[in-house]
C-alpha cells in the first residue's frame, strides 16, 4: 500500500477515517442546503424515504444498483491497469444501442429467452467495441484515454438521439422520449410483489465477484496490476502491455455494455432506448470504485449507498424546490472529504501507518 492508493483502506483506522469523512461531507452538504434555504433534516429525510422508504422504492434502488455494480466491476479492471476509462458512459450507451437493435431485429422471430440472451451478447459487443476504440486511440494514436473516452461519450449520446428521432422512431411521430417500448415478454422476470429481477441481482453480484477473482488470481489480472503499478518494469518483465491494455478496455466496455442491456430490459427500465439512457451510472461507478480504493468488496455496499442517494434525491426535485443534483453534491463531497482525510492521515498523522 504505497502513496498510490486512492480512497479508503480496510481496517479499524480505515473505518474511523470513513466516519470522519462522512461527518465532514454531511457538514458541507448541510451548509449548501442551508444556503439554499432548505431544511437539511427534511432533505436528508426525503433522500432516505425516497430510496429505502417503501418496498417499491427499495426495489427501484436495487435494480438501479445492478448497472452501477456492472460498471464498477469493469472499472476495477481498467483502474488496476492504471487506466482512466472515462468513456464508460458511452460504453453503457452503446451496449443499450446494440441490445435494442438486436431485439428489434429478432423479437418477432425467436422465443423471448433467446432474444434476451442474444441482446445481452450484442450489448457486451457494443460496449466492448466502444471501449476498444478508446483503448485503440490511446494505444495507436497516443490520444489520452480521458479525452478519447469523453469524445466517444458525446458521440454515443448523439447517435442515440439520431436513432431515436430517425431510423428507430416510434410509429407515427418520433420524440426524444425514446423508441417504441418492448412488450412485457421481453422484460426480465421479477419476483412476485417485489419489482426486482433475480437474474439482474445475480448478474450484478456474480460479475463483480468474478472480476475480483480474476484480478487477484489470474495471469491477466496480475499482469494488469503490474502495468498499473509500473508500466516500465512490466514491459521489462515481458508483459505485452499494449495487448493487455486493449483487453482491459474491451473487458470494461463489455461489462458497461451489459449494464446498458440491463437498462433496456431490466425490471425498472423503461424498456426502450432513449437519449441519456446511461443516466450517469458510469460516472457514478467511477466515484464508487475510487471511494472503494479499487476494492471489489467495498464497491458492492458503496455502490448500493450511492445508488440510494441518487434515487432518493430525485424526490428533492419532485417534492421540494430543489435540484436532483443534490445527490451528486453529497456524493462528490463525500469522495472529496475521504480523499482529504486520507491525505491528511498519510501525510501528517503517523498513527494511520501500519
Amino acid at each position, binding site marked *: 500500500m504505497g*502513496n*498510490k492508493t*486512492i480512497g479508503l483502506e480496510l481496517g479499524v483506522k480505515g473505518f474511523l477515517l470513513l466516519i470522519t469523512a462522512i461527518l465532514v461531507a454531511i457538514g458541507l452538504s448541510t451548509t*449548501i442546503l442551508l*444556503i*439554499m434555504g432548505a431544511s437539511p433534516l427534511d432533505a436528508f429525510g426525503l433522500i432516505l424515504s425516497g430510496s429505502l422508504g417503501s418496498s417499491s422504492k427499495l426495489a427501484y434502488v436495487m435494480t438501479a444498483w445492478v448497472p452501477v455494480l456492472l460498471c464498477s466491476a469493469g472499472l476495477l479492471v481498467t483502474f488496476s491497469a492504471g487506466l*482512466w476509462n*472515462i468513456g464508460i458512459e458511452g460504453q453503457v450507451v452503446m451496449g443499450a444501442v446494440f441490445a435494442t437493435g438486436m431485439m428489434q431485429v429478432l423479437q418477432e422471430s425467436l422465443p423471448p429467452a433467446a432474444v434476451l440472451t442474444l441482446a445481452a451478447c450484442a450489448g457486451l459487443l457494443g460496449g466492448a467495441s466502444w471501449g476498444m476504440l478508446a483503448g485503440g*486511440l490511446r494505444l*495507436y*494514436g*497516443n*490520444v*489520452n484515454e*480521458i*479525452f*478519447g473516452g*469523453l*469524445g*466517444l461519450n*458525446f*458521440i454515443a*449520446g*448523439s447517435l442515440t*438521439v*439520431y436513432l431515436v*428521432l*430517425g431510423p428507430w422512431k416510434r410509429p407515427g411521430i418520433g420524440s426524444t422520449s425514446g423508441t417504441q417500448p418492448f412488450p412485457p415478454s421481453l422484460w426480465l422476470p421479477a419476483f412476485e410483489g417485489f419489482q426486482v429481477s433475480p437474474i439482474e441481482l445475480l448478474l450484478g453480484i456474480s460479475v463483480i465477484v468474478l472480476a475480483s477473482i480474476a484480478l487477484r488470481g489470474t495471469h491477466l489480472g496480475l499482469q494488469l496490476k503490474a502495468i498499473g503499478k509500473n508500466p516500465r518494469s512490466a514491459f521489462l518483465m515481458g508483459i505485452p502491455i499494449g495487448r493487455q491494455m486493449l483487453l482491459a478496455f474491451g473487458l470494461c466496455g463489455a461489462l458497461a455494455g451489459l449494464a446498458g442491456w440491463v437498462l433496456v430490459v431490466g425490471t425498472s427500465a423503461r424498456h426502450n432506448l432513449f437519449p441519456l439512457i446511461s443516466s450517469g451510472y458510469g*460516472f457514478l461507478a*467511477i*466515484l464508487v470504485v*475510487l471511494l472503494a480504493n479499487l476494492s471489489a468488496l467495498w464497491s458492492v455496499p458503496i455502490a448500493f449507498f450511492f445508488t440510494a442517494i441518487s434515487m432518493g434525491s430525485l424526490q428533492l426535485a419532485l417534492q421540494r*424546490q*430543489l*435540484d436532483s*443534483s*443534490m*445527490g*451528486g*453534491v453529497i*456524493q*462528490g*463531497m463525500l*469522495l*472529496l472529504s475521504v*480523499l*482529504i482525510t*486520507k*491525505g*491528511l492521515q*498519510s*501525510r501528517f498523522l503517523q498513527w494511520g501507518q501500519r
Partner: protein
Amino acid sequence: MDIAILINSILAASPPLLFAVLGETITEKAGVINLSLDGSLLLTAMVGFIIALHTNSVIAGFLTGMAVGAFIGLIIAFMSLTLHQPQVATGFVLTLLSRDLAYVVGNPYTHLPGPQVPHMPIPGLKELTFIGPVLFDQNPVVYLSLLAIILVWIYIFKTRSGLKLQGLGERPAAAFLRGVNVTKMRYFYTLIGGALVGLGGASFSLMVKPGWARPYGIEGTGWIALAIVIFGGWKPIRAALGIFFFVALQTAVNILQSAAPNVPTQLFPTLPFPLMILTLLFVTIGNAEWMNRILNRLPVGTKRFFIRTLKALQTSPPASLGTLFKKE
C-alpha cells in the same frame, strides 16, 4: 463587410475559452493539471451570474467567478501538492461536484434576465477600415481577452519569472536548486490559472450566453478547452489560434444548420467532439511507432513532407506535468 462582421462575431464569442485555456496553460506550465474545467466553468458561470444579478454589478460577478475558480485551484493544489493525492482523481471528482453544485445552487435562478457586459466601441479606432469594425467595435471583456493572449505569452516566454514558471513544469528539481520554492510557486500558478478559468466561466454567463439554465448548454466545453491546451502545445498564441479556429467552425456549423435543414440537427452539437479526437490524434500521432514505420516506407520527398507536417503539429507537455516534486 460581411467578413468583418463574421470575424467580429468570432472574436466576441471567444473570451470564455480564451481565458479558460490561458489559465489552464499557466497551471500546466507549472506542472499541475487542473482537470476540473468542465465543472468549474459551469460553477463560475452560475456564481458570476447570481452575484452580478444581486449586486447589479457585472464587475462583482466577474470577481466572484474568479475567486471561485481560484478556490477550486486551491483545492487541486492542496490535494496534490500538500496531501500528495492523485491530481486526475481530484480533478475528476471536482468536475462532477462543481457541475452538480452549479445545478443545485443555480436552480432558483434559471431563465432570469440579468446584467450583461455593455458594448463599448473605441471611438476613433472604430472608424479604421476593416480593423475598426473587427477589433474595436467590441466590449471590454473581448479587448481584455485579446490583450491577455499577448500578456500571457510575454510573461511565459519573455520574462524572468516566466522562465522560472517553465522550470516548475519542466525540471522542478533544477528550479529548486536555483532557490525557487517549487511548492509555493505551484500553488500560486494553480490559483492564478483557476482564477482565469473563473473569468472564463463568468464571461459565459455575463456575455456570451447571458443568464443561467439547466442544462446551460456549455456542458463539454471544459473538455474542449483542456484539449485545446494540448493542441496549443502549451503556447498561448497557438492555443488562441486553435480557439478562433474552433469558434469559427462552430459559427460555420450554425450557418450550415440553417442552410441544410435535412441533416438531423441533433448531430451538429456533437461535431466538436469527433473533431477534438481527430485534432489530438494529429497532434500526437507523430510519436506513434507504427506511424514512423509507415513513413519510412514512403519515397523520400513525400516522407519529408509528412514528417515536417507531423512535426509542425506535434506538441509535447511540460516534462514533469502531473508529477509530484519531493525534496529528497
